[in-house]
């Protein structure tokens, strides 16, 4: 129960960070996806159920915060899939090891790429914007930026692991 409460608190903080502070570090229109990083952390540390549940709730929150402009259900869908994918790397005995090694950013990269591809498949329905163009201009740069940011928690975990 306490663990779920802590996860809920951190999730709320991540959602607030993503919607308030992260736009300030945007490179053009590209921002890192903190929610995705958090969902991958949960996938590695807690498994598919926790990661997909948190992914669904935070995705829904993100959709609601986008206002009437957003597509309600799109982020919840893609973040759920991301959490479920990340959960495949769950190994109770190797949690710290997986979070503090190169496996973590690698997982973030794969999950983020699939997440962005899926996002654009749905998002660009009925528009005249080319899917390739959107993926090249936004999907891949956003994945790269997210992976870069995911190195921060990896180094923190590695340091904690050593000490």
């Amino acid at each position, binding site marked *: 129960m306490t663990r779920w409460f802590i996860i809920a608190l951190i999730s709320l903080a991540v959602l607030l960070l993503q919607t308030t502070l992260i736009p300030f570090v945007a490179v053009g*229109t590209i921002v890192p996806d903190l929610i995705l990083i958090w969902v991958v952390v949960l996938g590695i540390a807690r498994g598919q159920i926790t990661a997909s549940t948190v992914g669904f709730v935070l995705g829904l929150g993100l*959709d*609601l*915060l986008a206002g009437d*402009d957003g597509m309600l259900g799109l*982020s919840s869908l893609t973040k759920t899939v991301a959490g*479920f994918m990340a959960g495949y790397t769950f190994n109770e005995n190797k949690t710290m090891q997986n979070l503090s090694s190169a496996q973590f950013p690698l997982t973030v990269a794969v999950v983020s790429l699939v997440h962005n591809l899926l996002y*654009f498949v749905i998002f660009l329905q009925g528009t005249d914007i080319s899917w390739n163009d959107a993926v090249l201009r936004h999907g891949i740069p956003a994945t790269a930026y997210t992976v870069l940011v995911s190195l921060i928690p990896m180094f923190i975990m590695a340091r904690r692991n050593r000490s």
Partner: protein
Amino acid sequence: MLKRVYDIIVLFKEYVLLAVYLLISILLLAVNTTDQARVIRGHVLTAAGVVQDVFGFIPNYFALRQQNRILREQNLTLSDEVNRLREAALENIRLRRLVGLREQPAFGYVSAQVVGSQVQALRNTATINAGTEDGVLVGMPVVTDQGLAGRIVSTGSRYAIAQLLYHKDLRVSARIQRSRVNGIIRWTGGSELQFAHVPKTLDVVEGDVVITSEFSSLFPSGIRIGIVTSTRQLPGELFQAITVHPSVDFDRLEEVFVAKVVPDSSRVALERRTND
């Protein structure tokens, strides 16, 4: 039988849960434009706006010095321009009276600060600290002293969300100020806008100023949008490929004004009826 179903659900609980979440998400995607969703979003928007307001000082702090310099330069240029425009306005009034043209309706503005921004793929929006309590309504244009920034797409009591020109769904009927050539302004990514649907034979050159046109049912005419940066004649295409640099600096969007004018519903309805 029930026990067996229960056992199967427990055994594959991850997949069952995934299916449930995906189903809910798909249902939400399907019922996106309902009023219920709008109300929930309005409440969430107000709550989020309060939090974003707290962090609103950050861009001000870092950009203040540069902004001061730009404003001083702009002030000088504008003072000169105001003098010339005063003369032109007086002349315009005289000429309009002479030929019996209708005056353009004047509308008020609500000033607001940008307290947050949403950057999601090809959808860029800004949260501003003015809402329905200040008279801001969905559909109202958002401008800055530099030109058109976007339009209001969602309102809470004290906050509103503006869809910016850097948004894949926003199309603006526009025209070249010099040659009166009409087209559509749209954004498909990057830092430039596209001025589309302009036949190759029409007169558009680099440096032309693009403004909103009377054809727009969303925006009043004459609002500056940007400057043409390149024109290309692509072989095999009917239209020119024209790029436009927006007048508004979206990286430094802090103060905006909401023009208190909503799309003319009778005109929109008539146009829709005719198109149907």
